[in-house]
């Protein structure tokens, strides 16, 4: 039937159907849970869309699987907090900033020494000697650096809790967050992109855990487990204009960001840069013909994806208005995004945005649904077997979502490896 109607092939049938499902789902949530809840969900979904776009260009364009979205997201979240939270007088009015500044200057100096020692082979020193000298010098200076910082850090924690923020406009934090994540991505990419693709998975997984460990433990920087709140919004907050209006404004902002990124990606896709990227992906041009540039292009994509994750993380954290380092979880902040991207279709930007919305709606609604199912199970168990359910049934019901996300990943790979909206491979002939 459809094959006989060529006109239908030109209409974006799939896109329209998927978009329709998403709209219906959102309306359903709003009817069930109310408007303020619905808008909150949409804000978070747009933030996730930014994150998923970052993921999908890495995975879909360059085959790089980033299993540490959480880390880049947390860097963005940290920047959003650090730039927008007011200055901490208890810190700035002491001589601690000065001490900290000197410690940083010293650290920079030490690093320069280490770099210098690592170059002494240019002076004719044998390479083996250089390597050992560098290791020993780096070790000693590292220990010295640590002994400078530790007392200052504990003094800050004791006297001022933490260094506080910079009191700037939150959007500055969003941008710096993207930058921070990009820099982290650059170093990881430099090390891993020339190697087997699974090394990147391990390395990103590791860097995410490390970033999180730093944020949880360096209380002088992040307030650690004590969390920082409130983080001021880049738009008027609920206190000024009410929940619905404030959230709507925030939604407008995040939606604009998504739109801007989307348009940028579409343009880049059609530009020579995008064509090159696609040919790398599709292996249309042999690696030899492209020369060494391939790794450079791949690094560009990876860093760009990380920047988007930083911005998305900033937007998401900023919206929750609380910086809680322990709240960054692999499930919510890495794997959920992975599902969104592979469901939407790797490398398909529109598909990824729609995938982000669809998965997020499912995610949000799975909480009450799981609880409801659990209650039914308890009720039946009680009725039929006089079964005594364990006390923390609610928290366990939520754990079922971990299972569902995992199952979803394997099912998509098996039955819809191209996602809901496969990326059309265009051939420029």
């Amino acid at each position, binding site marked *: 039937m459809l094959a006989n109607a060529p006109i239908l092939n030109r209409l974006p049938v799939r896109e329209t159907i998927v978009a329709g499902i998403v709209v219906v789902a959102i309306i359903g949530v709003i009817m069930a849970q109310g408007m303020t809840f619905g808008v909150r969900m949409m804000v978070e979904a747009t933030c996730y869309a930014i994150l998923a776009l970052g993921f999908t260009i890495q995975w879909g364009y360059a085959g790089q699987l980033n299993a540490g979205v959480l880390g880049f997201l947390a860097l963005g979240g940290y920047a959003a907090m650090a730039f927008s939270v007011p200055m901490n007088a208890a810190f700035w009015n002491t001589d601690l900033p000065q001490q900290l500044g000197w410690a940083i200057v010293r650290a920079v100096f030490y690093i320069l020494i280490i770099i210098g020692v690592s170059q002494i082979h240019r002076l004719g020193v044998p390479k083996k000697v250089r390597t050992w000298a560098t290791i020993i010098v780096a070790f000693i200076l590292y220990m010295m650096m640590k002994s400078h910082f530790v007392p200052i850090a504990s003094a800050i924690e004791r006297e001022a809790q933490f260094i506080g923020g910079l009191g700037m406009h939150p959007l500055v934090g969003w941008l710096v967050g993207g930058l921070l994540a990009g820099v982290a991505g650059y170093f990881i990419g430099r*090390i891993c992109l020339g190697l087997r693709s699974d090394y990147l998975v*391990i390395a990103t997984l590791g*860097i995410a855990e*490390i970033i999180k*460990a730093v944020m949880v433990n360096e209380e002088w920087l992040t307030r650690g487990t004590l969390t920082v709140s409130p983080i001021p919004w880049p738009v008027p907050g609920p206190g000024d204009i009410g929940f619905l209006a404030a959230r709507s404004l925030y939604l407008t902002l995040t939606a604009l960001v998504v739109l801007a990124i989307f348009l940028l990606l579409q343009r880049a896709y059609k530009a020579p840069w995008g064509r090159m990227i696609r040919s790398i992906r599709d292996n249309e041009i042999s690696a030899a013909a492209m020369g060494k540039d391939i790794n450079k292009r791949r690094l560009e994509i990876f860093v760009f994806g990380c920047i988007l994750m930083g911005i998305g993380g900033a937007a998401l954290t900023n919206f929750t208005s609380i910086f809680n380092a322990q709240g960054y979880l692999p499930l919510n902040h890495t794997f959920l995004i992975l599902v969104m991207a592979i469901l939407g279709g790797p490398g398909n930007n529109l598909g990824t945005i729609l995938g982000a919305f669809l998965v997020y709606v499912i995610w949000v609604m799975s909480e009450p649904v799981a609880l409801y199912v659990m209650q039914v199970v308890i009720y039946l168990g009680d009725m039929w077997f006089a079964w005594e359910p364990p006390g923390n049934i609610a*928290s366990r019901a939520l754990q079922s*979502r971990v299972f569902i*996300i*995992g199952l979803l990943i394997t099912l998509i790979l098996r039955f819809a*490896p191209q996602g809901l909206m496969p990326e059309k491979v265009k051939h420029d002939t």
Partner: protein
Amino acid sequence: MNEFIFFINNVVISGAVAGSIYALGAIGITLIFSIMRFAHFAHADMMTFGAFMVFIFTAMFPGSGAALGIPTPILMLPIAMAITAVLAIGLDNAFYKPLRDKGVKPIVLVIASLGVTLMLQGIIRMFAGTSSRSLYIGERKEIYRLEVPMEGITRPIVITDPQIWLIIFAIVAVVALHFFLTRSRLGKAMRAMSDNPDLAEVSGINTRAVVMVTWVIAGALAAVAGTMLAMDVALQPQLSFFILLPIFAATIVGGVGQPYGAIAGGYLVGFVETLSVFNWSILLRPLQPMLPEALEVPRNLALVGTEYKIVVPFFILVVVLIWRPTGIFKGKVI
């Protein structure tokens, strides 16, 4: 000399324990890689699953090990090994094999294994909750204090029951694996398939049997490692993300696809980890009188705090990836 005993307790024993756990995990990952050519990220959760099975059986028959004079979890371990081995084969048939048969890229299998990770974690958390539990149910963890009959030593060497079991299990497993790989027909076939899968097929080697036995070994060893970890510390579902990094670091350090390398890599990572969090000033303090006044031994000379232990395997990983991506031994590049 008490400082020396402190060193033995905190570095030698702890390192051997961590190293054994990492080695047992890394063997599985490296075998799976050499046969199926993908990095199995659900391995740490197979470890947790094995420990969880031990927990269930121990809870069902508490104290039953006393009859044999061994801790009940050790008695239940063979059952858990068998169940985990079956689980491993089941996971392969349900999730990995269909994708392999479709001829997907290895990275897709990696994603599938991430999905399996979440499924296993979800199951364990649904049944066991997220809190940490002890595998010793109604039993006491024996702690042995070995006095050292030497002058000036007042402190004992401290080693716990599970630590002794772990080291025994690790030695037995390594020896058994060695004989399996070099003496048995299936073991040789496994090495052959790791060398050249196409030729293995052409030679008439039953590659399906090899795949099965790979999962059996990986699953059983994962159950041992997970149980030992849980006996030594506690059973915690969320531990797996932390254990994943050291066992992958061990695998890569040893050269991916090389079982002996994985063992060496496991102990290397384990010892470097404990050496890095060890407070060296304890060893240096006795030297203080010999040093000039100005040179005071700092109070804390640990390389990293225990809260940053995770940085150590990552650092090892990065150094190896930069310096020699094929592993520090003669590496086969796959």
